[in-house]
């Protein structure tokens, strides 16, 4: 009896081992399109919105099966997901990423499908360049952002930098129309001094320095201090220019701010920290992208009426740039043509295409209504499509739904077309990582940091380890 039981147990274990290594799957004959930007199940209103789009899409295209497959892109997970062919058919990433994803064949060429739909020529030229390689298109832009300066208006008013109108709203310009808010880095310093004097344990500005976010911010600062470019392309050779005089001045400005206790004294802050520090009122100003302005509101209950977003300050009085990036939708490297076509059509049902038929515009409106129902701030945004009919209809919807004082954003959106500038072209993330190290040094040791030497080191490492590979 005992032996029999033992034998049976052994047989079960053996069978379990064999079955654990066997996989089986059965399709329903439909083309499956998995959607990576599907919202988290806790966001019930967003899920309901996606389910509505899914219902409409599957009714019109019964040959397709839409599957929720939430994937938040991160550089840490993409390699494993792509190698294991576990990427959703369509997912969103950042404009810094497509080139390396294309190089590794982790995303697929969609030129034929998007041309067939007539969307290619309606794409914003800068955004199209970010998702293209050798004339082929690999993505659909969702929206764009420009880097600018986030202001806590209540704090700036408290320290006397800005004024108030009779109706209680903030006044950001003097009678002659000149900005009252800081427009140069020298003025940012002056305002920071006022903030530090007026509040306890509070700083003027937060400067990021980790997870490549420091380098990302710093490159914009370096341009605005007069650095023409951090990478110089001449005669087919690309040379690192991280130790340009403008970049050194920018780093020295940060060092001096750190040394005088005017910036948040943490040397390992990444992107989520800017809105954490703003949200908890530890700082009055931050540099960030125009697509993330709602983060302090949604995560920290920051009063949306106290937010202004203004152009990046200039360091030399002349150079004014806004680093320009955004979020594209990209398609898994192993997606079939039918899947890509289905995913592109689903974007139309989400209101993320240049189409202006009732279905597409209703989808855009549904997005606004859902945001409104959630009490989220609805802000102006940078458009991915440039066809007139699309802009007219979407701008009309914006006028109806935007629930912030657009005056606080006007200067930024009025100038973005002139100031916008794409990121440096080669090994951008690796360059940011090296710049992070320099930033961490000046923030952690501001009394002794030698900015020129730090940027010389970063420059030679970038040239030797990366640009020389080109």
């Amino acid at each position, binding site marked *: 009896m005992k032996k029999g039981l*033992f*034998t049976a*147990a*052994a*047989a079960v*274990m*053996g069978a*379990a*081992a064999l079955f*654990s*290594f066997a996989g089986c799957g059965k399709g329903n004959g439909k083309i499956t399109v998995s959607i990576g930007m599907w919202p988290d199940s806790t966001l019930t209103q967003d899920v309901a919105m996606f389910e509505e789009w899914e219902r409409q899409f599957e009714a019109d295209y019964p040959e397709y099966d839409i599957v929720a497959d939430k994937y938040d892109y991160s*550089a*840490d*997970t993409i*390699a*494993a997901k*792509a*190698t294991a062919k576990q990427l959703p058919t369509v997912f969103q990433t950042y404009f810094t990423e497509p080139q*390396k994803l294309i190089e*590794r064949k*982790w995303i697929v060429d969609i030129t034929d499908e998007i041309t067939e739909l007539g969307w290619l020529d309606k794409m914003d030229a800068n955004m199209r360049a970010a998702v293209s390689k050798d004339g082929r298109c690999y993505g659909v832009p969702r929206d764009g952002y420009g880097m600018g300066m986030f202001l806590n208006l209540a704090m700036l008013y408290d320290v006397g930098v800005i004024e108030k109108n009779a109706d209680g709203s903030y006044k950001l310009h003097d009678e002659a129309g000149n900005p009252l808010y800081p427009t140069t880095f020298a003025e940012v310093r002056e305002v920071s001094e006022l903030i530090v004097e007026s509040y*306890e*344990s*509070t700083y003027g500005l937060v400067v990021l*320095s*980790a*997870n*490549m976010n420091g380098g990302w911010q710093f490159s914009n600062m370096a341009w605005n201090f007069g650095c023409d470019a951090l990478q110089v392309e001449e005669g087919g050779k690309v040379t690192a220019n991280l130790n340009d005089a403008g970049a050194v001045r920018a780093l020295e400005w940060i060092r001096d701010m750190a040394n005088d206790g005017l910036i*948040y*004294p*943490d*040397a*390992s802050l*990444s992107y989520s920290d800017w809105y954490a520090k703003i949200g908890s009122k*530890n700082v009055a100003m931050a540099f960030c992208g125009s697509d993330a302005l709602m983060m302090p509101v949604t995560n920290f209950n920051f009063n949306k009426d106290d937010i202004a977003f203004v152009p990046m300050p200039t360091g030399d009085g002349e150079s004014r740039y806004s680093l320009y990036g955004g979020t594209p939708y990209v398609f898994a490297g192993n997606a079939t043509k039918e899947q890509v076509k289905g995913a592109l059509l689903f974007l139309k049902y989400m209101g993320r295409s240049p189409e202006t038929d009732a279905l597409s515009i209703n989808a855009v409106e549904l997005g606004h209504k859902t945001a409104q129902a959630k009490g989220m701030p609805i802000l102006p945004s940078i458009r991915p499509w440039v066809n007139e009919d699309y802009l007219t209809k979407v701008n009309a919807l914006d006028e109806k739904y935007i629930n912030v004082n657009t005056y606080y954003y006007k200067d930024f959106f009025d100038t973005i077309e002139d100031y916008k500038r794409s990121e440096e072209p080669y090994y951008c*993330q*690796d360059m940011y*990582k090296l710049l*992070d*190290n*320099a930033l*961490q*040094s000046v*923030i*952690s*040791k501001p009394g002794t940091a030698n900015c020129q030497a730090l940027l010389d080191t970063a420059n030679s*490492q970038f040239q030797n*380890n990366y640009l020389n590979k080109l």
Partner: protein
Amino acid sequence: MKLNSLPEDRSSVSYRAKRLFRRNWSGWLLMLPGLLLFVFFVWAPLAQNVILSFSETDGFEAAGFNSFENYVRVFNDPMFSKALVNTFKYIFWSIIIGFLVPIFLGLLLSEVAHFKSFFRLGIYFPAIVSGIAVVIMWSYLFDPNPGAVLNQLLSALGIPASQFLSDPKLTIPLIVVTMTWRGAGGTVLVYLSALQNIDNSQYEAARMDGAGALSRVWHVTLPHVKPTIRMLFILQIISVFQVFYEPLVMTSGGPDGASVSLLLLSYQYAFQSFDAGASAAVGVILALIIIALTVVYLRLSRPKKDKISKRWLRYAKKINR
């Protein structure tokens, strides 16, 4: 038996393997799931890692032999030397803080007469908290803002505010404090069980001989827990060599590489630079260092008792002859 079949060679390997399987087939079947999982999750990745370290890579796939190129690239990266030095700094601080604290706590706990279970639970409690939650909590405590918790405490004591993790000199010791806070509980319990196995009569004898408290610890307690201390010492070094998520979450390896460890560097190569070859090379280097240290340690700490008993054996054989 067929007429033309030859009897199987009983000394052959295949015959012996078949016999081994037939005799214990149910045992082999019981082992099979574990064995397959072990091959799949441990041996195969290990072998693949070594192969990748000598390969040009396409994603995580080997795309051709490239000799020692990955190793050369790793050795030329200034961050590698920082990570190597830092890893030894982690070991140094973990011996100072993480190794001695549990011994001390174990000794204290063994002396407690009342509320022993309460203190035991209290010391073990951090170990049941998720590791990531612990490091995030400590990151908040180590916020360098003068208004943050720890700086407020320092200020109340009249000590100037600290930059904590942003100070390159403090980063590693503070990460080790975090690791110790979470990990000490489990180690204390191991020491405690070793301490409770000591025969009380030895303490009584020592007391009768006039030994004080410190003398009893030195002459009775420590010799008894020495094997446990030795085992936990080597385990401590091996685990500290693998320090990874604490610096990843708390500092991302910064400031300026001041807390990057070898394993974190390997992770950064693989998942931030997408350089699986370099990542694998760091993994192999790390494994070689751990193997070398373990061998050296085991040689140095081989108990003299063994040598003596071997001598006795030889002596006894001589007499018997």
